[in-house]
């Protein structure tokens, strides 16, 4: 027992010393730029575990842009340092990462991935007076708490759902829809809204249920879907399962149109489904970079490919890049790294900023304005073609 007590004392001391060391470093650096200390930008997301590729996408995108800025002399003559933090998609880890970011003295944080992780972190960043932008958490409630320095670069769930429902009812004249989601906050929200709007417009949702993300075989579920004879299957979850669903629906001889939400907007969707099953599938999403007139978009995608030898994994990688770009813009325009000034600039003065994902404007709550969704149809070569 005694030895244990000694151990515990030593352990406490070590932790306390480690804590002191870290506390001393960042100190108060809200002073003007003359100190030339680097500007620290935190990137928080799941960089291990099931959603690791999404968190890694955040870090890759932001690091790429930060490198380019640094090569061009940095921001306000100061270097930008990107600090990644892994929250594993767990709200508890997210709170710890947030405290860690605060202790590191970051100016702004980009993240986290899922709404349930962004939520606890946003409270901590709000208290610490840090700018917080989520690239991917679409839950409406996040902006309803009135945090003055919280923003998002993604669109809210319900805007896409409204677009999808109207398109299905008015353009395609579908009346029987099967809805599948994967029980993530994002996909569930999109599916719930779509159900609501589709039924409001006189359509019938003949099937509504969740699949388990990470699984491989959805034939039992699809067999049930087949029995309800829908005209279309809309899956609001992510491309790995989306591709499998499209392929297995084909295997089961289902002839309903397969449709996916913007999380299915990924070239790997076609790879997984296979050309045969992917052809004719439709994806609702914000315009793809090659359909945007902004040179920024094409350049970012090209730079990303050059550096990482791969396309950005998901739209959220691009959303994270946009989050970084508006922070950089605000810092340049306000010539300050004061979070208050950055936030005020984003809220009031940012007008039609040419984002990689389209023009960026904010309402008073910090939600991104507008909806620019459209449907893409996958052609026989596996290309995404805008649907007229």
């Amino acid at each position, binding site marked *: 027992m005694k030895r244990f007590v000694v151990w515990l004392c030593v352990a406490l001391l070590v932790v306390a010393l480690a804590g002191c060391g870290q506390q001393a470093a960042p100190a108060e650096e809200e002073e003007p730029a003359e100190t030339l200390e680097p500007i620290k930008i935190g990137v928080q997301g799941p960089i291990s575990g099931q959603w690791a590729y999404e968190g890694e996408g955040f870090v890759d995108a932001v690091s790429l842009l930060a490198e380019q800025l640094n090569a061009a002399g940095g921001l306000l003559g100061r270097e930008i340092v990107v600090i990644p933090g892994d929250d594993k998609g767990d709200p508890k880890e997210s709170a710890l990462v947030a405290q860690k970011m605060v202790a590191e003295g970051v100016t702004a944080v980009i993240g986290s991935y899922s709404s349930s992780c962004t939520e606890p972190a946003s409270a901590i960043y709000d208290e610490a007076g840090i700018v917080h932008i989520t690239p991917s958490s679409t839950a409406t409630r996040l902006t309803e708490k009135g945090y003055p320095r919280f923003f998002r670069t993604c669109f809210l769930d319900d805007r896409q759902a409204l677009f999808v429902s109207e398109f299905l009812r008015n353009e395609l004249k579908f009346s029987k829809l099967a809805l599948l989601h994967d029980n993530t906050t994002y996909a569930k929200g999109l599916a719930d809204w779509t159900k609501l709007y589709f039924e409001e417009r006189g359509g019938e949702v003949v099937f509504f249920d*969740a699949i388990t993300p990470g699984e491989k075989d959805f*034939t039992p579920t699809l067999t049930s879907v087949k029995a309800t004879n829908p005209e279309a299957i809309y899956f609001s979850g992510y491309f790995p399962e989306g591709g499998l669903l499209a392929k297995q629906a084909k295997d089961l001889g289902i002839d309903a149109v397969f449709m996916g939400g913007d999380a299915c907007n990924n070239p790997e969707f076609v790879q997984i489904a296979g050309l045969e099953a992917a052809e004719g599938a439709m994806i609702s999403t914000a315009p793809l970079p090659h359909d945007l007139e902004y040179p920024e978009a094409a350049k970012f995608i090209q730079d990303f490919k050059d550096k990482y030898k791969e396309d950005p994994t998901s739209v959220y990688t691009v959303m994270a890049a946009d989050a970084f770009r508006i922070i950089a813009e605000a810092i340049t325009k306000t010539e300050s790294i004061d979070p208050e000034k950055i936030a005020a600039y984003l809220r009031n003065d940012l007008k039609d900023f040419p984002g990689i994902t389209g023009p960026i404007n904010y309402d008073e709550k910090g939600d991104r304005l507008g909806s620019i969704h459209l449907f893409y149809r996958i052609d026989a070569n596996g290309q995404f073609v805008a649907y007229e």
Partner: protein
Amino acid sequence: MEFLLQQVINGLTIGSVYALVALGYTMIYGILRLINFAHGELFMLGSYLAFSFIASVGLVNVIPNLFLAIVVVFILSMGLVGFTGVAIERIAYKPLRHAGRLPAVVSALGVSIFMQNAVMLTYGTRYKVYPEGIIPTMAWEILGVEITLMRLIILGIAISLMFTLYFFVQKTMVGTAIRAIALDHDTSRLMGINVDSIIRLVFVIGPALGASAGIMVGLYYRQINFTMGWAYGLRAFTAAILGGIGNIPGAMIGGLLLGVAEAFGAGYVSPQWKDAIAFTILILVLIFRPTGLLGERVAEKV
């Protein structure tokens, strides 16, 4: 009726993968009383290695005969995973063999985290996709039930591997030694059985079977990721217990039953509740048959 038959076919396809993975759990449990929580990761590793051989090395293009190429991929991947299995046993389990069972369980969990992240760091965080069209896509409709060639192959390979293993364990000398060790290490040693080398052999066979399941998952579903070992591992462990852990036919039956139970749960109740339904069935089975379907009956001590 079509619906029912289709769900049975769906369930058998899913279940045959569980059954193959469950065999590894059950064999290792049988001789060491160890729940090898790293087994799911070995399954996943098999899938990734085969991906490398097919997509990166391009074995399918190098070897002209498709059938031969696939066989080579299977042998290479299963061999490498078997080797990994032995290495894990040597490093992480053998030193703990006399320390009781629970330390080895924690060690196995550590190996599991280690391997999952090792694969993530080597192959990257993204989903990997097997190239399209390795196995020709053929499908038939029989009595309104859709059957694809790949499903028949999975069922065929799984069932033949299971029977081979069963006869190996029941009919050969080495198999007899495995069964002897499962009963009593010390007596087996007295009978002149080299216990350590038999344990090594089991740590080749179990992971290699798991790897074969991994390769089939890759070939059929084509999309693989580094976290899939955990999901399949838990199901396969469930299947092994359901059939009666330590019992080889039990693992087969448990796996197939679990697959069918999932398919029925998803088909007749709700996809999001299917795992809860499968677990409820499992708990009910265990309440009435406390050692699983084919588990040995243990005399109630009390």
